[in-house]
């Protein structure tokens, strides 16, 4: 999902940065408020960042014959709310842009938008919906993080299609082409991300049930150790 350095026309690069910036700023503000109110969340915030660090470093082979990586942003969004992951995703993407030449400074805004904004919002929304229809906790986590991963890559496809519409087929033809590269490759990886997110939530539910209850993720009756 990393759009490479210089591969978005200047107008698009600036546009996506302008869209992402206020959300990152609000994320910093809301995280600051949360940590001030609950200083004990600080460690858990580190876990959310650490999870994104690991998952976005893992290049995993996929059935399409190419490889890609999960994003790990859905997990943190479920813990801290959808905007909280925007600044954390920004840090991860900046690390990769500056040290790994993966993604870039000019494409940072677009990459933050897909991985650290769309993904987290999808995760948060799907989780709330799944819980509303009384889906079990683990299933809700899986559906939320799995679809967050897929939507991140569909967003990247749309961003590229907007910047590079097909000369004959326009946006749609171009979108289909990029989605074939990204979304198909991503299917098994999205499942992997979902499973890993359930795994870490299982650990949290066992050892830190009081935090999860406080964060409105677990109902009291489900949090029996």
């Amino acid at each position, binding site marked *: 999902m990393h759009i490479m350095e210089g591969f978005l026309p200047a107008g698009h690069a600036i546009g996506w940065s302008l869209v992402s910036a206020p959300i990152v700023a609000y994320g910093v503000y809301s995280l600051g408020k949360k940590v001030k109110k609950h200083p004990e969340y600080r460690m858990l915030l580190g876990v959310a960042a650490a999870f994104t660090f690991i998952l976005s*470093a893992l290049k995993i*082979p996929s059935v399409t014959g190419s*490889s890609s990586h999960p994003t790990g942003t859905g997990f943190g969004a479920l813990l801290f709310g959808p905007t909280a992951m925007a600044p954390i995703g920004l840090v991860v993407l900046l690390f990769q842009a500056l040290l790994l030449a*993966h993604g870039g400074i000019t494409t940072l805004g677009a990459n933050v938008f897909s991985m650290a904004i769309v993904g987290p919002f999808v995760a948060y929304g799907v989780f709330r919906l799944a819980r509303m229809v009384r889906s079990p906790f683990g299933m809700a986590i899986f559906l939320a993080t799995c679809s967050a991963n897929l939507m991140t890559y569909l967003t990247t496809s749309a961003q*590229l299609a907007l910047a590079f519409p097909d000369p004959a087929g326009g946006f749609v033809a171009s979108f289909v082409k990029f989605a074939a590269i990204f979304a198909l490759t991503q299917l098994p990886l999205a499942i992997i991300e979902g499973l890993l997110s359930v795994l870490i939530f299982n650990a949290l539910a066992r050892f830190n049930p009081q935090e999860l209850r406080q964060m409105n993720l677990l109902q009291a009756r489900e949090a029996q150790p």
Partner: protein
Amino acid sequence: MKKHQNLLLILAVILLALLPLGVVQTDKDVETFTGADGEAMVAINQIAPDYEPWFNPFWEPPSGEIESLLFALQAALGGGFIGYYLGVSITRVRMRRAWQQGQPCT
């Protein structure tokens, strides 16, 4: 089921990651399992052959080895922290239990 759920989850993840290695036909002449990010770049070149990237990275890892070093570092930082946090949490639960049973916390 619940007892073995974590084990099953880990097994499923490993299977999903290994499956493509067996299923995908590898061809000596074509490099397989390259990054999807790079493939998107190729697709851009097909759609807009005249497009020139207008900005270059300030610094690129000088070799694939250095690049994998940095990726490993990134994952190790994350893994280390999560391991530390789980260790702290497990110890906390254990000590609380011991305390409730009136035993000294050692």
